[in-house]
């Protein structure tokens, strides 16, 4: 308990970058994915959201960049309520919040560099972008992002020629090209093998530590959580059931979050 109170104290001194207030989401088919979730995210932290499939993790992340419309509640980003934003403000918001996905969501037929340059779409005029004309600055930024995730030499490969781990690194580079303040990662390693899984997580950590980008990451594996997270929140059936340090998740909490009889699987 002492660790958690100390942690809270240090966070109170900081202004939150993102504040989720009583967010609810009900899908048209009646499924209640989020039943009033509230939490704060602080600048520069590596926050991990854990929970079973269907617990509302993915919905939560997508509510933050408005890929999904929250039904109720407020999401305050840098002092602004995002839930009342119109279409063009949403695009500006998304530009400041990068996102990577479980299935990478790259454009297979485009080159790696072209995929990474898509991170600059938000600030490139329509016609220019359609003819593939990006500013010198953006091109340099894209190449730098690729170098940062260690695949600068693959810039002119077609995206579908890369392995899963490399694709996810391209996705990270694409998000970095946006110059984001926050990086959302939705199950970034769930379709990767254990070895590549650590590579990708390491790059996320690097982005977090070296560039100071706040990371909010959905994860399955608790062993990864202990290794990478600064702070953890747990969702269960659309409700926040745990908030604290990764080291504090003991057997009891584990069963609480993942259900009775669940056993922990390690990734190494």
């Amino acid at each position, binding site marked *: 308990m002492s660790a958690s109170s100390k942690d809270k104290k240090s966070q109170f001194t900081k202004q939150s970058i993102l504040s989720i207030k009583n967010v609810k989401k009900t899908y048209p088919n009646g499924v209640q994915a989020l039943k009033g979730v509230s939490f704060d995210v602080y600048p520069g932290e590596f926050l991990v959201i854990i929970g079973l499939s269907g617990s509302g993790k993915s919905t939560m992340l997508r509510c933050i*960049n408005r*890929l999904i419309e929250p039904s109720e509640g407020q999401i305050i980003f840098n002092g602004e309520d995002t839930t009342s934003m119109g279409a063009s403000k949403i*695009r*500006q*918001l*998304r*530009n*400041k*919040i*990068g*996102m990577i*996905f479980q*299935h*990478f*969501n*790259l*454009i*297979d*037929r*485009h080159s790696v560099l072209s995929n990474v340059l*898509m*991170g*600059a*779409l*938000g*600030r490139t005029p*329509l016609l220019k*972008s*359609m003819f593939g004309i990006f500013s010198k600055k953006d091109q340099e930024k894209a190449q730098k992002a690729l170098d940062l995730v260690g695949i600068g030499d693959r810039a002119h490969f077609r995206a579908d020629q890369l392995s899963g781990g490399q694709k996810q690194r391209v*996705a990270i580079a*694409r*998000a970095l090209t*946006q110059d984001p303040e926050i990086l*959302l990662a939705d199950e970034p390693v769930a379709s990767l093998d254990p070895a590549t899984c650590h590579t990708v997580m390491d790059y996320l950590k690097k982005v977090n530590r070296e560039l100071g980008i706040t990371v909010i990451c959905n994860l399955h594996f608790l062993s990864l959580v202990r290794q990478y997270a600064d702070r953890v929140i747990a969702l269960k059936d659309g409700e926040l059931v745990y908030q604290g340090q990764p080291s504090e998740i003991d057997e009891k909490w584990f069963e609480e979050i993942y259900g009775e009889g669940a056993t922990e699987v390690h990734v190494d």
Partner: protein
Amino acid sequence: MALYKIKYLIFDGLIFAYLAAVAWVLGTSPSEEQLMDLQTNFLLCLALFVVGAIVSILINKTKMKTLGALLFEPDHMKGKNTKSFWKSFAGLQFVVTFLVTFATGSLVTEFSFYELFDDRGMGGAKRLFQALIDPDLSILPIAILKIIETVYIAFMATALAIPLAFILSFLCAKNIMGKTSLGFAVYATLRTLLNVTRSVEALVWAIIFTIWVGVGPFAGMLALMLHSVASLAKQYSEIVECVSEGPIEGVQATGANSLQVVWFSIVPQIVLPYVAFTIYRWDINVRMATIIGLVGGGGIGTLLMQYQGQALWHQVGCLALVIAVTVWLMDTASAYIREAIK
């Protein structure tokens, strides 16, 4: 009332009304005059439809399910159907409807083995065939010139149809337009318009255009183009509806605007199927251009009609040969190209 209920009541109502109407006609063998009395018959059918819908409600109140209910019920109810389809009421309804339609169809088309294998008729067909397989090759030069014209008509029709169909395909895709009510209205209007355009045969369009711009290749080309726009837009839009959502989400998340999302996440996914469909359409257009010629749309069809009208079957045979070879060549080439770019 839930939308699916309305759907299945209309479906079942129509089926039951149809079965009752057929039974009525067979049972009472009405006179020609009675059959032609559209107003009374329409009211009768309407009454049968209402009765049919009520029957459907009654049946679905019991443990049984009608075909319509089985077809249109929401997915979460479908899981509960444990009974095998062929043993259920819906299965019976399907089989009866199919058999009744087949039997009626044989009556309507005057299906007859006797006429098919009658000696006199077969003899005539045989003579015609013999002339066709002994083509008069002296008209080969003009036939080849005309088939070249036909291929060009088909090419122009396809080429001019591509940009229009390309733009329309996005406006006719439900996954793009269905999200707002304005979008859905545009989608529904355009879909209906295209369906109507497509349901009018190219042949009819050709007749209209021969009056509009005069007899000749230009009219044929316009007719084919219009038909191609409608067909391609439908096929293209179905490809758009099948694109995977992931890349769309990926591009959206960067803050791209909707046109950028279409250009960067949808277009790369659809380019190759579009090309394949377009080549196939050209191939179809060559075949259709032949027919269009029959009503004065230019190309080899016009020539074909002249010889056929004079019953010059040896010359028709030559034209048929040229058409067959061309269509075969186009067909094979387009198949190889479509295979290669997959």
